[in-house]
């Protein structure tokens, strides 16, 4: 059940209504709703997520007693993840099934990377004493399954979510009218990004990458549009998840802060998929020795390894591994040279955007050969296909203007999301604004789909 479908709107309104009428049963309603929501994915997916919940719940009692059980927890969770997500990568005979990663069927159980990571983080935090052990199975199940975030995050920490889960079961959810506008506003923003922008860019990106760019301009436009498509798609999903959370009485963390405004790679990762970035930092980079004593090369090795694994998390393909490794390399180079660069800020920002755009090619291409060929075309090599986005100068100018408009939307979003402005707008809160926001959400959901574009991160 996709967040941008009329069916989800109906489902959400039903859950919202039930929570308003029966607040005492908040936890049970949300748990049942989450199970119903996830069951749409299919019986296999449902069975798997319940197995993961049950196994982690039982193992957490052993982890509390003895930290050594953490190794078993890791083994179980990672084995499940590897089997269901990476077997196509490890067994060559199955590789053909994922030859078209972005346009084929979604082959992995829905949300597996997200809920497995959330479970691992919980177990590590329990072992380290950073969070309380959840003793109730129902609380633990809702912690993993909460429908607003189970499929594609944000990846939540137990110390942030568990108290809210406990409040839901105690009938004391923090939902209130004063948060409705904020929640609805975030849902609307997410839908504008997904239904209005990401889905509109998808056919052009698909065409450039499937048919191959005939010229350098087309290749650059394809890569830039993909950068925006994936941003609008994933941050749109996250905004809806956070907004839905507010409406239900949950505070979920924002997952994106306009990443293309970053001026260096470090800042980019503080703005892009923030909950995954911090997960990787806390549960991968630091345990591997990152940020601690050690020479430049030792630290660089840790960065490369971390980013390579972060790339692999996205998908079972060498393109994702190389995407991560090149990001690691970029971070290393920036650490070495960034402070010494004596260039105007705007120039550094553009340079950084160019690098980010080139790296997106690895993320989107079907294989490494296509990635390198595509980048070659971007920098003047002969076209690798027959697709061109513009046949004359005027068309090129129009498309370039469109790209500038997309960038402007990024600035506008930063302006809208500024904390003091959000606080200021809450003064307008009231039934008229609720009606306006609900109405716009309704109309955006009503827009018929010309082609099915599931949220990209459902594939991860």
């Amino acid at each position, binding site marked *: 059940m996709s967040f941008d479908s009329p069916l989800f709107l109906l489902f959400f309104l039903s859950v919202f209504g039930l929570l308003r009428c029966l607040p005492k049963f908040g936890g049970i309603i949300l748990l049942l709703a989450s199970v119903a929501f996830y069951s749409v994915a299919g019986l296999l997916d449902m069975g798997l997520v319940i197995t993961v919940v049950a196994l982690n719940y039982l193992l957490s009692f052993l982890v509390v007693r003895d930290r050594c059980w953490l190794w078993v927890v890791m083994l179980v969770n990672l084995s499940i993840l590897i089997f269901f997500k990476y077997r196509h990568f490890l067994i060559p005979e199955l590789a053909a099934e994922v030859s078209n990663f972005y346009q084929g069927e979604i082959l992995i159980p829905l949300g597996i990377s997200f809920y497995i990571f959330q479970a691992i983080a919980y177990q590590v935090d329990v072992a380290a004493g950073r969070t309380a052990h959840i003793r109730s199975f129902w609380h633990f199940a809702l912690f993993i399954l909460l429908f607003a975030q189970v499929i594609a995050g944000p990846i939540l920490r137990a110390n942030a979510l568990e108290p809210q889960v406990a409040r839901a079961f105690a009938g004391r959810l923090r939902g209130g009218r004063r948060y409705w506008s904020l929640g609805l506003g975030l849902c609307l923003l997410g839908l504008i990004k997904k239904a209005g922008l990401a889905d*509109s860019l998808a056919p052009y990106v698909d065409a450039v990458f499937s048919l191959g760019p005939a010229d350098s301009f087309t290749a650059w436009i394809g890569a830039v549009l993909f950068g925006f498509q994936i941003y609008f798609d994933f941050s749109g999903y996250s905004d809806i998840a956070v907004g839905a959370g507010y409406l239900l009485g949950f505070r979920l963390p924002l997952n994106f802060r306009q990443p293309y405004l970053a001026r260096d790679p470090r800042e980019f990762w503080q703005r892009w998929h923030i909950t995954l970035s911090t997960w990787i930092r806390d549960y991968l980079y630091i345990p591997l020795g990152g940020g601690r004593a050690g020479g430049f090369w030792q630290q660089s090795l840790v960065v490369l390894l971390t980013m390579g694994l972060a790339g692999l998390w996205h998908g079972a393909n060498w393109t994702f591994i190389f995407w991560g490794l090149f990001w690691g390399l970029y971070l290393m180079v920036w650490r070495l040279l960034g402070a010494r660069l004596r260039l105007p800020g705007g120039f550094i920002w553009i340079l950084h955007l160019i690098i980010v755009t080139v790296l997106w090619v690895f993320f989107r291409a079907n294989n490494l050969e296509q990635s390198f060929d595509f980048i070659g075309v971007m920098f003047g090599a002969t076209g690798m296909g027959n697709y061109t986005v513009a046949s004359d100068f005027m068309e090129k100018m129009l498309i370039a203007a469109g790209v500038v408009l997309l960038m402007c939307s990024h600035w506008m979003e930063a302006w809208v999301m500024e904390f003091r402005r959000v606080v200021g707008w809450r003064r307008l809160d009231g039934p*008229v604004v609720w*009606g*306006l926001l609900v*109405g*716009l959400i309704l*109309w955006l959901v009503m827009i*018929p789909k010309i082609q*099915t574009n599931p949220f990209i991160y459902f594939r991860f």
Partner: protein
Amino acid sequence: MAEKGKIQNTFHRSARFTVGLLAATLVFELLLYAIEISPLWRVLPVAEVALYGPDSETGYTIRPNVSGVWVAENRARIQMSAQGLRDSDTPFEKPKGLWRIALAGDSITEALQVEESKTFANLLESHLSKKGREVEVINLGISGALPSVQVARMESVGVRFSPDLLVYMINISDFASPTLRTDSAFPGYRRDVSGEWRLSYAFRDTRGYHLRQSFIGQTLYWLLDHSRVMRIINARLNQGFGISDKKDDSAEVPSPPSCGVTVAGAVATALRQPNNAPEVRGAMDGFLRDVAVTAKRVGVPAVLAVRGLPQSCKGERETNRRLQADLEAHLRDFGIGMLDMDAVVIMAMNKAAMGDDINVLYGFGTRVGFGHLNHKGHDIYSRALADGLAPWINGLSEGM
């Protein structure tokens, strides 16, 4: 007192919420309008134009002067003519000395996926003019038009343009389609009391047809023409509210005839052994008789441009050749000419050094090989028709 205050409060809140909802509808309407009149219509979501309305002769028809954006497969701005055609405004009265071809067909001919100037019907005019013949092509194409609808449309609209040649773009599989023999949504061939296969119009008695013809129906069409929000609601109702959104069906159908697909088999049987497929044969002969009657009444030749006879399938060539010969002979009995559309298309492709893979003529972007004709396809179709129809056009020119 407190209870009364509470009710009043709820009422005021609901009223203000409704004001918000109405404001959202207005904002959305303006937004869709702004997108449509700016270059953003090529990319951003737009409300697809609603084209069709009821018609007593053909069941449904293109409503005159409707304009908007077509979205499925490829975006194009659409402007229908005052006569309800996918064509520029053309007076019924034919200027002296002008030649006219009335071209009936389905969505391939209607060609909503490309601009009007790029349709093969339009390009055909310029190819024929290059051959020294000033010809006007009247595009009667309408989506979903089976032979029964085509002949009814030709009779009710096409002949009013005083054409010099009647052309029907027919898919061979249409003859075998059971829909050709149903009349609940548009005219279909049914056996009458005397055992003759004739056009039947049961759709005229359906509630849906009456509703569309009524004041309510006309008001809804007016709203569809003037409100983009209404078009969104209409399109969503057509698509449904299901778990997974339906894809655009037409883009999923491989359009060129595929090897091994024997839809033409039933037609072959109907031609060779009519007793084994009496219904297919009956409906087909009913259609051919009506085509011949119309042509005779107007006093001009009629041609069936038949699609769907696979040309390059190994092992099927002989079967197809036999079917083509049988069909051609059968049409000759009715005084109707035949054009093997796929054969002339491949010839035109060879001339243009494009090989003989007919798939490249269909589909847009990543969907090449599926759906409707793309720009290349329209260009090749127009060249193919210019060559293929030459014998009939020449014949007519001699008569001048």
